[in-house]
C-alpha cells in the first residue's frame, strides 16, 4: 500500500529527519507531540500536528492509545516510530498493523525475536554468525551458572535477558564476586524489567564496537557496510564513524555477509543494525545484538554510501521491493558524526536545558547538521539531551577529522552548555587520529582531560 500520510511517533531531530524524507517522497506528515513540544521544529515543519498528552513521555510519546487515536483522527495510513520510545515495541507494531495502517519497520515478530537477547543469540548462531562465548540461553540454576562461568572464564558479564541500552549489566572478575552479584542482578532485573532472567557472556577486553547497517524488504537483504562507535561514555555513543578505520577488507566482507545472513533468516523488513564487538588483537568479531530501528548514527552510513536510509525504509514499508542489489552499494570516503548534547562537559556532563539565544550552523562541502534547534527555541527538560548531530564527509579519514574540527569551530549554540568542547579536543587527539581506541578508552581519557573541558579552546 503506497503511503500517503505518515504519522511520526517521535520527537526531536529524528522527527525532523523523517518529515524531510517523507516530504521528498510527496507524503504528507502528521507530527504527534506532548504539551512540552508544541513549539518544536518538527511540529512547525509537519503538515499537521496533534497534541497527545502532557510532557511526561509515559503519558505522551509512549501512549499507544493516544497515538493511534491521532492517526485515525487525521487519516494517517502509516506510522514511523523513529528511535527510542515505541520504536522496538512489538505490540505497538502489531497494534498499528491491526488498525489497518503501515508500520515503518520490521514485523512485530522480528522485533520480538531480536529484542529477546537469548532468542537473538540463537538466531545468530543458526545463521552462522559468531557470538560472544557465554550461556546458550538464560541461566536460572545457581550451580549451572557457576559451571558456565568457569567454562567461559572470568571476567564474566551478567546481563538481564530483558535489559537493553547498557542497563542491567554487571561484571564479575572472580567466582566470589560472581556469587555475590548473581542474586543482586536477578533482583534488579526483576524490578527494572519485570523479568529476573539472566544470561552470561565472556567479557571481551579492549573490544571495539562495530555495527553493520542492513536493509531488507522481507525477501532480500543487503548491507550498507559498517560503522565504528567505540567512543562511548557510560555506554552511550558520542562519536561515530563509517567505515571503521581498522577493519581489514577481508574481515569487512565476512562481517557484513554475516549480518546479511542473519537478516535473511528472520525475513527482515526495513532498516536494521547488527552490533558486534571486534577484537582487533585477535581479528575476531562477535554478534551482540540487533537494533530493529533506524539508529541515531545512521547519517554516517548515508554519507559513505549515498543511500537515504530513512527514505528507503519508508519506500519498503510502502510495499516497494528493495531498490539496491549488493553490488550497487559502494563505500566511498569517510564520515564522522559527533553528538551535540545539552550537557556540560566541565560539570561531569550535567544535562542543562535552556533557551537557544544564538545559533550558527556550519556549512561548506561535506558538512551536515541534523538538529531540532532554531534560535529562540527552549529545549525542554523532559527528554534526552541530544540537540543535534554534526556529520562530516571527506575523501579519507584524516581529511574528515580536519573537516570536523573546522565545522566544530563554526558551530555556535548559545544559551546552554553543549558537548562541543569535548569534540574539539577529540578532533585533535593523537589517539583519535590513529583510531587507537576501544569501548573503554574514552572514560579514562575524560578523567585525565577533565581540566581541559572547562573552556572552549580556540588554539589549534
Amino acid at each position, binding site marked *: 500500500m503506497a503511503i500517503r500520510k505518515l504519522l511520526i511517533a517521535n520527537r526531536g531531530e529524528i522527527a525532523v529527519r523523517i518529515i524531510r524524507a517523507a516530504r521528498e517522497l510527496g507524503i504528507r506528515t502528521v507530527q504527534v507531540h506532548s504539551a512540552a513540544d508544541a513549539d518544536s521544529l518538527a511540529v512547525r515543519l509537519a503538515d499537521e500536528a496533534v497534541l497527545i498528552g502532557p*510532557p511526561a513521555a509515559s503519558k505522551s510519546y509512549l501512549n499507544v492509545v493516544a497515538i493511534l487515536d491521532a492517526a485515525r483522527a487525521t487519516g494517517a495510513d502509516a506510522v514511523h516510530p523513529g528511535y527510542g520510545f515505541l520504536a522496538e515495541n512489538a505490540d505497538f507494531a502489531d497494534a498499528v498493523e491491526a488498525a489497518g495502517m503501515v508500520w515503518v519497520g520490521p514485523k512485530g515478530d522480528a522485533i520480538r525475536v531480536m529484542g529477546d537477547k537469548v532468542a537473538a543469540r540463537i538466531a545468530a548462531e543458526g545463521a552462522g554468525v559468531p557470538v560472544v562465548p557465554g550461556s546458550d540461553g538464560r541461566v536460572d540454576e545457581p550451580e549451572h551458572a557457576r559451571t558456565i562461568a568457569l567454562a567461559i572464564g572470568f571476567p564474566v558479564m551478567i546481563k538481564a535477558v530483558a535489559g537493553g541500552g547498557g542497563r542491567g549489566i554487571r561484571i564479575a572478575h572472580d567466582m566470589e564476586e560472581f556469587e555475590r552479584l548473581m542474586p543482586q542482578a536477578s533482583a534488579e532485573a526483576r*524490578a527494572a524489567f519485570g523479568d529476573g532472567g539472566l544470561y552470561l557472556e565472556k567479557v571481551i577486553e579492549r573490544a571495539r564496537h562495530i555495527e553493520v547497517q542492513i536493509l531488507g524488504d522481507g525477501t532480500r537483504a543487503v548491507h550498507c557496510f559498517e560503522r565504528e562507535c567505540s567512543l562511548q561514555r557510560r555506554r552511550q555513543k558520542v562519536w561515530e564513524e563509517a567505515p571503521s578505520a581498522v577493519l581489514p577488507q577481508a574481515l569487512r566482507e565476512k562481517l557484513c555477509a554475516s549480518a546479511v545472513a542473519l537478516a535473511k533468516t528472520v525475513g527482515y523488513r526495513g532498516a536494521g543494525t547488527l552490533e558486534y564487538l571486534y577484537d582487533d588483537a585477535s581479528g575476531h568479531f562477535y554478534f551482540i545484538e540487533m537494533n530493529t530501528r533506524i539508529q541515531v548514527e545512521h547519517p554516517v552510513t548515508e554519507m559513505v554510501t549515498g543511500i537515504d536510509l530513512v527514505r528507503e525504509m519508508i519506500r519498503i514499508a510502502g510495499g516497494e521491493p528493495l531498490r539496491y542489489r549488493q553490488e550497487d552499494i559502494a563505500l566511498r570516503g569517510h564520515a564522522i558524526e559527533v553528538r551535540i548534547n545539552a*550537557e556540560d562537559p566541565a560539570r561531569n556532563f*550535567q*544535562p542543562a*536545558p535552556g533557551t537557544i539565544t544564538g545559533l550558527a550552523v556550519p556549512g561548506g562541502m561535506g558538512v551536515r547538521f541534523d538538529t531540532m534547534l532554531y534560535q529562540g527555541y527552549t529545549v525542554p*527538560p*523532559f527528554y534526552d*539531551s541530544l540537540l543535534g548531530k554534526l556529520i562530516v564527509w571527506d575523501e579519507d579519514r584524516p581529511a574528515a577529522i580536519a573537516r570536523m574540527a573546522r565545522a566544530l569551530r563554526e558551530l555556535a549554540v548559545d544559551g546552554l552548555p553543549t558537548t562541543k568542547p569535548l569534540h574539539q579536543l577529540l578532533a585533535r587527539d593523537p589517539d583519535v587520529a590513529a583510531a587507537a581506541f576501544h569501548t573503554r578508552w574514552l572514560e579514562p581519557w575524560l578523567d585525565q582531560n577533565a581540566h581541559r573541558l572547562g573552556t572552549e579552546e580556540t588554539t589549534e
Partner: protein
Amino acid sequence: MTKQILSPLPGTFYRKPTPDKPAFKEVGDSVAVGDVIGLIEVMKSFNEVVADQAGRITGFPADDEEPVMAGQPLVDLA
C-alpha cells in the same frame, strides 16, 4: 511569611526515590537543612533536591511526577 523550598532546576519532580518506595517526606514531617526532600529529573538525569532551610512541612505545592520550572515552590514549611 511562609518558607518554601524551591526547585533548583527545571524538570520533573519526584517525591519518592523509586516508584515503589515511600516518599522522602510527608506533610507534618520536620525538615533539617541538608535533608533530601525529592528528586528532579532533568533529561533522564536524577538530581536530589536538598532543603536549604529547616521547618515543618505544611504542604507540597508541586505534585509527585509533576513538571516544574526552576524556582517553582516544591515544599511549604512552617
